[in-house]
């Protein structure tokens, strides 16, 4: 029952997001507006309790949800076969650059240890891994 209420809530927020996007002619995807609206609502324990279970299930199986669209690649094989190495190069290089850029930005912007301390210098952790 709780999961059912949670799922209904997720759908309601998505509907709300889609409605807002349409009413105000926003370029934002409806589910993203739903996300932004749900975020503060999670302060309400009732909402959080019901949403957590379903949200956890959906997020831990997120990769399954990409498959139907991914299989759609077979529709574009002809187009892609003519430019495959250009696309592959663009995807690999940009992914490497993006990863490196994010790491460098975070190193530069956050110097202090995060909440809970630094585990390498923390005697309590980092041991017992064998």
């Amino acid at each position: 029952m709780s999961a059912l209420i949670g799922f209904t809530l997720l759908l309601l927020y998505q509907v709300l997001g889609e409605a807002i996007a349409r009413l105000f002619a926003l370029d934002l995807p409806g589910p993203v507006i739903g996300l932004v609206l749900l975020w503060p609502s999670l302060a309400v324990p009732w909402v959080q309790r019901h949403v957590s279970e379903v949200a956890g299930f959906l997020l831990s199986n997120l990769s399954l949800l990409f498959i139907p669209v991914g299989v759609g690649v077979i529709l574009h094989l002809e187009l892609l076969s003519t430019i495959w190495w250009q696309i592959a190069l663009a995807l690999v290089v940009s992914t490497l650059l993006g990863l490196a850029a994010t790491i460098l930005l975070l190193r530069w912007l956050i110097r202090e240890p995060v909440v809970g301390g630094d585990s390498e210098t923390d005697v309590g952790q980092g041991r017992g891994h064998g």
Partner: protein
Amino acid sequence: MSGKGAVMAEFVELWTYLSATPLFGLTATLLVYVLGLAIYQHYDQTPWLNPVLWSIVALGGALWWLDIPYQRYFAGAQFIHFLLGPAVVSLALPLWQRRQELKRHAVALTLAALGGGAVSALSAFGIAWWLGVPESVALSLIPKSVTAPVAMGLADTIGGIAELAAIFAVLSGLIGALLARTVFGLMGEGTTKLAWMRRGYALGTVSHGIGAARALQVSNQAGAYAGLALAAQAVLASLWIPLLLDWF
């Protein structure tokens, strides 16, 4: 002889019937994914055995080999596809759970997500453009670091092709999941709590859900920040990508 032929004919008829129902696409997707996941877990989650990649290859290959139109497959698989909407809404949960860190490092995390996402998006577009890739395809590369459902909508908005954007997003996820460890190793990222945060956040920023799933396997800390980054990227990219393209 005729008995055997009749059984065969019956089998063909049954197959024709079953493969035409939405049940086929739905069951095939789940079956292939569950098998892929089992193999992946059996071999200690080796990145190149990624179940999304092999499920797509197996299902795509099967459709091609059995001559089943994609539309017929999607008639069933759309029930899984539909869950992407509520899954995006669910991303509010990791944002909420990590609200303290988010508040504390709001500026840093926002800038890192914007910077990393922009470097990834613009370098992909730049390389493709420079190599003479058609404009609609090059534009479909821009939302590559955003989770697939959002990437599709964004591609539509900026004049790309939604299906290609989804595939590029999935591929970026896989490439990130495969190469992240090597990149972080080369950059000298350690195993401190702060390093796990950076590793996770970078993986979520560039490789969205697939990267986050990978990060979660390695460390809870990395997984949590990857989830945060994935949600941040979905929101931020939805804001800056259409704006940038409007501007040009």
